[in-house]
Every structure is written in structure tokens, then in C-alpha cells.
């Protein structure tokens, strides 16, 4: 077998999210909104298991693009609650479909007509989410937007994830909580990916 030109062990890409104005409701039926949490790709740059946020976004975007669907990214600033972030995104999405994501990696696919605390697919164990899973989450969200019936992404389960990662998850959540800007609405962001040798 051959090897890729550079190993993906060291992160090569970084992402900066530039705010471009208040997030508005999409009119395209073929778009999926990715809603990120207050500290995503800002205060934090990696998930709980050190998957770079740049890679998380790239894979989500790639999964959506591969299905021929458009994507838009927004940042929700006034809450760090995944259900609230995802539901906000879903109501702004032209297709009604949104992928919500927290800095530590916890992810959810939401639909605008669902109750806030419900969801289409939930990936609660952030330590088990890696790049291929994010790709499949993006692909599934896009297929829902197209009205197709994708197989739900298999949710992995690890009995040890909770004892092993709970403390770190709690700390990350506290930090994310500190980044909340109360009373400020969601903003549209533009991603800029850059290659960097150091990561």
C-alpha cells in the first residue's frame, strides 16, 4: 500500500471563522446549516479527543458537498446547549436541516419542525467522534435535506468513555459556558482554511 503525501497525524489545516453579519433565514431548499457553539474554532481549536475543528468543519462540509447540497455556517452566541444551538440553526436553514456542534465535538442533526429537545440523529459521546464520522454526519444531513432516507450513522458506544472523559468534558463545558454572550443573536460566519506546518 501507498501512503498519502503527508500524514494526517499532525494537523495541517487551521480554520478562522469570520463573522459577516447577523444570520438570516435561508431561502434555498438545498442548503444545510452548520451551527457551531460560542467557543468553536475560537477559544477552542480541537475537540475533546484533539480532532482539529478545521478538520471537523472540512469533513462536515465535504459530506454535504459530496451529496450536491449547499452549506452555510452560523455561530450561536447566547447558549452552549446543543439542542438549542441545533434548533436555532434548523429554523434558519432553508431545508430545515441543521448540524449543531459543540467545541468538544458533541453533534446533533436537527429539523425545524421537531421539538427543541428532540432530534433526527444525536451523537452524544464526543470522545468517539472522528473525521470519518463527521463526514458521514454531513452526508446524512444533506440526504435528509434532499428528502432521502439515509441509514442513520452508527452511533458508537464505549462504556469507559463516561468515566474516562467526564471530568474533561465538564471542564470544556464550563469554558464554553464562559464564552456565551447573552442577548446576542446568531451570526453568519465564513470559514477560511489555511495550511500550516505546525498546526
Amino acid at each position, binding site marked *: *500500500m501507498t501512503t498519502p503525501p503527508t500524514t494526517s497525524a499532525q494537523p495541517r489545516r487551521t480554520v478562522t471563522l469570520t463573522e459577516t453579519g447577523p444570520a438570516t433565514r435561508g431561502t434555498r431548499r438545498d442548503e444545510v446549516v452548520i451551527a457551531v457553539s460560542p467557543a468553536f474554532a475560537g477559544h477552542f481549536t480541537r475537540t475533546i479527543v484533539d480532532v482539529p475543528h478545521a478538520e471537523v468543519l472540512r469533513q462536515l462540509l465535504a459530506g454535504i458537498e459530496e451529496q450536491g447540497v449547499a452549506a452555510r455556517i452560523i455561530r450561536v452566541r447566547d447558549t452552549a446547549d446543543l439542542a438549542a444551538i441545533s434548533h436555532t440553526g434548523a429554523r434558519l436553514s432553508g431545508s430545515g436541516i441543521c448540524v449543531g456542534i459543540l467545541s468538544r465535538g458533541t453533534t446533533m442533526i436537527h429539523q425545524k419542525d421537531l421539538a427543541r429537545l*428532540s432530534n433526527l440523529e444525536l451523537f452524544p459521546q464526543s470522545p468517539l467522534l472522528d473525521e470519518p464520522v463527521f463526514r458521514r454526519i454531513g452526508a446524512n444531513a444533506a440526504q435528509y435535506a434532499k428528502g432521502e432516507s439515509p441509514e442513520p450513522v452508527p452511533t458508537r458506544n464505549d462504556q469507559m468513555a463516561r468515566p474516562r472523559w467526564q471530568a474533561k468534558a465538564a471542564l470544556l463545558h464550563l469554558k464554553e459556558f464562559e464564552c456565551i454572550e447573552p442577548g446576542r443573536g446568531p451570526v453568519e460566519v465564513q470559514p477560511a482554511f489555511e495550511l500550516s506546518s505546525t498546526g
Partner: protein
Amino acid sequence: MDIGNSTTEACVAAIDPDGTVHYLGTDLTHTTGVKGTPDNTAGALTAVRGALHRAGRRAGEVTTVLLNEATPVISGLAMETITETIITESTMIGHNPTTPGGTGLGVGTTVSIDDLAEQEPGSPVVCVVPHGWDFDDTATAVDRAVGRGVDVVAAVLAGDDAVLVTNRLTVPIPVVDEVAAVEKVPLGMLAAVEVAAPGRTIRTLSNSYGLATVFGLDPDQTRHVSPVARALTGNRSAVVVRTPSGDVTDRRIPVGELVLRGAGKSLRVDVDAGADAIMETLARVQPLDDAHGEPGTHVGGMLAQVRDTMADTMADGAADLVEVSDIAIRDVLAVDTFVPAEVRGGLAGEVALENAVALAAMVRTSRSRMQLVADLVSDGLGTATAIGGIEGEMAVSGALTTPGVDRPVAVLDLGGGSTDAALLTREGECSAVHVAGAGELVTKLIDSELALGDREVAEAVKRYPLAKVESFFHIRHEDGTVQFFDEPLPPQVFARVVVLTSDGPVPVPTRHALDHVRRVRREAKRRVFVVNAVRALRQVAPGANLRALDFVVLLGGSALDFEIPDMIADALAGSGIVCGTGNVLGTEGPRNAVASGLVRAYAADSVAAVPDAPAPGLAG
């Protein structure tokens, strides 16, 4: 009382001294245990008590409980694949990734992307990309090579990246992705990659002469590649690599011969000849005495399995064991079907629909242990019990209580294991037949053809109409009508094909579109019930002539199905037959025919034998 394969039905009636019957109440419940075994008692008692409760009577008022003489018919099923597709030397990738990239046809030599940097410009190249390559890197590498003058005409990828790569290329090329075993693609060989536009299928590689043109083949070689072309028909994308001896074969698996004995002769038929040939041979040896499979072959195994299951069933709880060799198979229904199977030698987990034959076999047994059930029911209720009446005759008698029916009447009892037909002529003569194959076989066909791997889901697909959930507030039914809801539907049914059960929509775990699921369901029902209805009626009809029948009444659980009665009625319409679902007693629908028939027979007998018979009697 009628104890059937899947339901136990009871009916309470009071009989006047002059023989007039007053029906008081009915009930039905699931049969407990295998029909004709002592396990039935629990279900029988439940049904009787239920019927009495509905009639507002007490058990003490019952004079007699009448039980049917259970038809000693048990059926079994087996299925065997008879074809197998094999790809040798990794010549073909015929899978259908949902999202290939670009469009058009690219013909060139296969080169790994790792060697693309050293590739000399000149001849056209098909780039092969192994696992681990990022889509951005792949696009950059290809663009750089194209910039140097290398003619990259197509690409084959391991990951699900085709659209991503195509979107990033300066000059778009056809790209086939999700080729899991991409490392097995032979390098340095001439290959062709074709991708069709969305909603279209490939034109060149699925055409033998297209392949001949692309690879410059002579007539002899063209004959050789025609299976490849056929295997690619209907795909949106494909890759064909020309190797010295690569091939796709469609092998028939030797499954052995079926030996059918009856009518004083013994005929042999190859099972891989298909269902039609088997059924035709079967028709020549009617009535069938026994069927055997060639020992040591698949069909031998199939029938042995059926026999073993039946020996177990009959020996269940009995003091003496039943010899397997004593069991004679009295009817066989063969149905052509297909099973999605992974192609041997395929590189991308290609799935081919392999032909298969499903066999339903029916065994007649000499021993019925209904007397044991009758004794137990008698103990349970503290009343006398009597076993009487041939099931077929009783069913006809019950069917005659359907409004608008007259002699001569034929009934079709569409059950779970067997389809039964009985005919009552104008003169009052009754004849009955049992043929193998009914509801269970339909479920099995749906299960295997949709690759559901779940009998429960297949059963639901069989029983309920389909719909597609288009949003949380509306569904589109299989006939195209849209239904809206005030309350949102549950999230797990969103965007899925569902069956509309009485408990609401239940998702069907399949990637197939609604239309495909519907077609499979209807075909399975047609191949079993319509074929069997015609076959069974021919056997009871005078001179095997369907036109000699006037009224056909459909009975049994499958007569409650939402489309089977219509399909049978359609099939019989040409013979000028009045056909419809029975409505026993004018209220019970296709249920309770045998139990009602038993009461009628008892009433007629009691008037004839003892003119001042006491009331009330009970059939339950």
C-alpha cells in the same frame, strides 16, 4: 370451534327444536401451539369463554362443544440460490455509488496517484487513488499532473470523494468512488471509466459493441465480454479494466434434481430449470404421492429439512416418534425469486441479484390428536365435546351463510401455511384439496427479495400499505395521495418509507424506493396466492374447468388482506366467476366459517336424529 394454523375461532349458537339456528356470539384468538396438538387447549378455552362472554351466557349453559377435525396438513419452506456471479482478475467495478463525479467516458492506462508525479505526458491515464488520500490533496495532485501535460482522463477512488474531487479540478473528469478494494485494481492496464449524468444510465460500457470499440476487440473477444456489459446494465457509473483473462461469469449452481412421484409414474426435474418447469412437471404427476430430492444435493437437503421439521412437529409431545421416512410430501409449490448477494471477486462490495427457487412443501399426516384436545376442552368447561365434520365441508357450509351466495359454491381458504379449496355442487357433493404455499411463503419472499433479514418487518410489509414520510406533518401514500397531520410524526420515521400499521407508521429499513417495495410485495402475493388460487380451483372444478364454477368465496386470514382478494378476483374475472371475500353470517367477514358450518351441520343432524333436541347447543 375451529382450530386453525394461526387462529382459533369460536361461535355460540342456540338451536330451536325445529332446527332453526340462532347465532349468539363469536370470538377468535391466536392458536396456541401447533394445530392438532394438546397445546391448542389454552387457546380453545380462551376463544370459547370469549364467545360466551360476548353472547352474555355462562359456561354452565353449554350443552355441547363441537370441534373441527383438523386437516392433517402441515407445510414447510426452503429456499436455495441457483446462480452465482463471479468476477475474475478484478476486471470490473460495477457497483453504483450514490454520488459519482463528473460525466462522460475516460479510457486510459491505470496509474496509482503515488506515481502520477513521475508519469510522462503522452498516453491517457486513469488515476487510481487508494485509501487515506484527502480530497483536496487528490485534486491538487491531479491538477498538477494535468498542468505538466499528463492526460488524466478519469479517476477511481477508494473513499466517498468523487463529487468533492471533481468540484476542485480545473478540468472535470469522470470519477467513480467508494471502491473499497481499490488496491486490487490492476495497474498499468487499459481501463475505461464511465459516469452518466444524474438520472441516466451508462451507455458505452453496458453495450457489448461499446466495449469492443473502447478496447478494440475482435468478434471472438466481444462474445467473451458480453457478460461484462450485461452485468453493468442499469448502472450510473462503471469501471472496466482489460486484463489478459479477466471475466465475469454467471454460474449456475447445480442444485440437483427433484423426483416427483404420482399417478403411477415418477418424473425428475432439475431445480435450476426454474419454478415454471417444476410446476409443469408437477402437473403431469397429479395427484402427487411423494417428492424426493436427489441425496447429497441442495434440493435433497431442502426437502430433508422440510421433512425433519414436520417429523419434529408431529412427534411433539407424542409418546411414539414419527419416522422421517413415513412422511410423504403431497404438494409442492415452486416460486422463482431472487436474492441480493455480494459478488465474488468484486472490488466495491457489488451486489448482484441471484436467481433462487423457493419451495413450499405440504405433508399430510395420518394422525390427528384432536381427540386429546377435545378431552381437555371437555375437562376445562365441564361439558360434552364432539369432533365432527371435514374442515372443507364445514367451511363451505359456513361460507353459504354469506349473503348472495348459492350452490354450486367453491371456497378458497387463504391461510398461513396452505391454500385450501373446497367445492359444493348443486347436488350437495363436496370435494376439497389442499395446496402448499400461502402467507408464510409471501413473507419469506418479501424478506429475501428486499434483503430485510427480519421476518417481523417483512410480515408488516405484507400486511400494511406503504407510505413515504415527506415531512413531520405529511405523508404520501403509495397511491400518491397526501395526508396531513396536526401533531408532528415521531423523528425516527422522518424521510423514510413506512408501513401504516394500526399503531401508526413504522419505518422499513431499506434503501429501496417506495415503488420498488410495493412491486416486490405485490409480485410475491401474485406468485403465491393468485397462482395457488387458480391451481387449487382447477383441482376441484368439474373437468378442471374454471368456467364451471359460479361462486367463489374467499375465507381465512389472508382474505382480510387489503389487496389479495382483489388480485384473485381480477385473475378469475375472465372465467365469469363471482368472486369476493366471504361475509360469514353476514357479520363475520371471512372469519368463523368452519365454526358456523359445524353449528349448521349439528343442527341439521339433531333435527334428523332427535326431533326434540334440547337447546342451546354450542360450537366453539
